[in-house]
C-alpha cells in the first residue's frame, strides 16, 4: 500500500525551475560564443581588414542584389503560375502544377548547373538569337535559375493563400457587381496577403541561404568571396565570419516580417490589455 502512496501524481502545473542541465547547456553556448569572439579577434588584423574587408563587403552586397533580383523576378513569374494553379482549366492547371513540381522537387544546385553549363553548351545558339550577353555572366545565370525556382514556391504560397479566403467573400463581391479584377485586388489579395506574409518571409530567408550555392558557379557573393579568401589564407575564421553575417541578415529579416505582420493583423487581434 505504501508503494502506491509513495508515487503521488505530479503537480498539475510545475513552477519554472532552473536545473543543472539548463545551466550546463547555457554555459556551453557561452563558451562557444567566447571562443567565436576570440577566434575572430585573433584573425582580424589591420592588414587583413585592408586586404579582405572590401571583398567581404562587396560579397555581402552581391548576395543582397542576387536575392532581391531573384525574389522580385520570381514574384512576377509566380503570378501566371499561381493563376494556372487556380485555373479551372484542367490542362492549364496541370502545366502549372508540373512547373511547380519540377522546380520544388529537384535541388536548386542542379537547376543552377543545368542553366549555367547548359547555357555554355548552347552558346552558339544563344549568340544567334542575341541572348549570349545575358547567359555569359554567372550572376545572370544564378538570377535566372533562382527566379524560376522561387517562382514555383511563391506560386504555391500565393495560390494557397487565395484559396484560403472564404468562398463567400468572392460571391458577395460578385453579387455587388464588382469587376473580377477589382475583386482580386480589393477583396481577395488583401485577405490572402495576411496568410501569405509569413510564408513569403520564410521564402526570402530560404532564398538568402540558398543563394550561397551561386558561389559554386563562380559568382562572388558573400559565400564566394569567403571561399576565395579561405583559398588564400586557409583560415576557417572567415567562414565563421560569413556565418555571422548570414545569421544577422536572416534574423533582421525575420524581425521585419514580424513587425509587418503585427501591423497588418492589428484589426483582427484582441486589443492590448491595460
Amino acid at each position, binding site marked *: 500500500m505504501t508503494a502506491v502512496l509513495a508515487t503521488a501524481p505530479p503537480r498539475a502545473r510545475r513552477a519554472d525551475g532552473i536545473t543543472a542541465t539548463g545551466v550546463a547547456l547555457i554555459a556551453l553556448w557561452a563558451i562557444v560564443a567566447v571562443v567565436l569572439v576570440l577566434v575572430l579577434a585573433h584573425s582580424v588584423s589591420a592588414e587583413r581588414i585592408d586586404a579582405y574587408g572590401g571583398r567581404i563587403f562587396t560579397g555581402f552586397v552581391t548576395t543582397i542584389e542576387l536575392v532581391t533580383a531573384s525574389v522580385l523576378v520570381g514574384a512576377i513569374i509566380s503570378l501566371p503560375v499561381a493563376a494556372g494553379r487556380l485555373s479551372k482549366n484542367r490542362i492549364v492547371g496541370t502545366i502549372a502544377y508540373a512547373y511547380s513540381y519540377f522546380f520544388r522537387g*529537384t535541388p536548386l*544546385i542542379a537547376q543552377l548547373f543545368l542553366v549555367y553549363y547548359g547555357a555554355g553548351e548552347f552558346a552558339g545558339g544563344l549568340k544567334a538569337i542575341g541572348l549570349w550577353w545575358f547567359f555569359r555572366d554567372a550572376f545572370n545565370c544564378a538570377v535566372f535559375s533562382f527566379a524560376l525556382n522561387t517562382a514555383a514556391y511563391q506560386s504555391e504560397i500565393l495560390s494557397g493563400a487565395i484559396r484560403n479566403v472564404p468562398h463567400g467573400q468572392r460571391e458577395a463581391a460578385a453579387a455587388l457587381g464588382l469587376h473580377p479584377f477589382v475583386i482580386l485586388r480589393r477583396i481577395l489579395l488583401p485577405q490572402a496577403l495576411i496568410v501569405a506574409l509569413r510564408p513569403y518571409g520564410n521564402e526570402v530567408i530560404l532564398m538568402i541561404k540558398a543563394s550561397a550555392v551561386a558561389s559554386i558557379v563562380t559568382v562572388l557573393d558573400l559565400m564566394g568571396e569567403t571561399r576565395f579568401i579561405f583559398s588564400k589564407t586557409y583560415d576557417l575564421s572567415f567562414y565563421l565570419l560569413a556565418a555571422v553575417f548570414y545569421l544577422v541578415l536572416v*534574423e533582421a529579416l525575420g524581425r521585419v516580417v514580424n513587425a509587418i505582420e503585427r501591423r497588418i493583423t492589428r484589426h483582427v487581434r484582441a486589443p492590448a490589455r491595460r
Partner: protein
Amino acid sequence: MSNLFDLLRFGPDGWGDELLAGALVTISLSLATLPVGLVAGFFVALGKQSADPLIRVAAQIYTTIFRGIPELLTLFLVYYGAQSGVSTVAAMLGAQFQISPFIAGMVALGLVLSSYASEVFLSAFRGIAAGQYEAATALGLRRPQTIRLVIFPQLIRLALPGLSNLWLNVMKDTALVSVITLNDLLRQTAVAVGFTKQPFFLYGVACAIYLVLSMVASLGIWRVDVWASRGIVRR
C-alpha cells in the same frame, strides 16, 4: 537524339551505371541523415518546452543558428572545421586521418534537419491535449512511458506532414555534399559532363532522377501516414 540516350548505357562506354551508383549514394546519405536529425530534433523540441527557462533558451539558440546559416556554409564549417581539428589531433598522435565527406554531410545535414524538425515536433506537441498527459498519469504511467506509449504515436501523425517536407528537403540538400567531393548523383553527373560535354542533357537526366526519388519518397510517406492514422476515422 538516340546518340544522347546512348550516353546513359550501362557498362564502360555509357554513364548509366555511374549515375545509378551516384543515386545510391544520394539515397544512402539521405537515409543516414534522417535518424540523426529526427532524434536530435525530438530532443531539441523537448528542450523547447522544458520547465527550465535556461534549457528553453539554449534550444532556441540552437535552432536560430542552424536555421539561419546557409546549408552550404554549415557543411563547409563541419567539413573543414572537423578536418583541421582531426588533423591537429592526428599530428599529435603521429597518424593521418581524413574526414569522409559522407560523415561530414551526415553531420551537417543532420544539424540543419534537427533544427527544422524541432519546430515541427514542437507544434505537434502543442496539438496534443493536456488531458492525454493527465490520463496517462491517472493510469499510473511514468513520464518515459507516457512519452513512448501515449504521446509519441499521436505525435508522429501530427508531425508527419511537416516532417515529410523536411525529408524532401534533405534529399535535395544532399546535392550540396557533392561540392566537398562526395560521389553522389550530382557529382557523378558532373564527371560525366566533363567527359561527354553534354551538360544540358545530363543535368536534365540528373534532375529527372531527383524527381523520381522525391516521388518514391512521397509514396513512402503516404504509406507511413496511412499507418500512423490507422486509429483515426477518415471523413
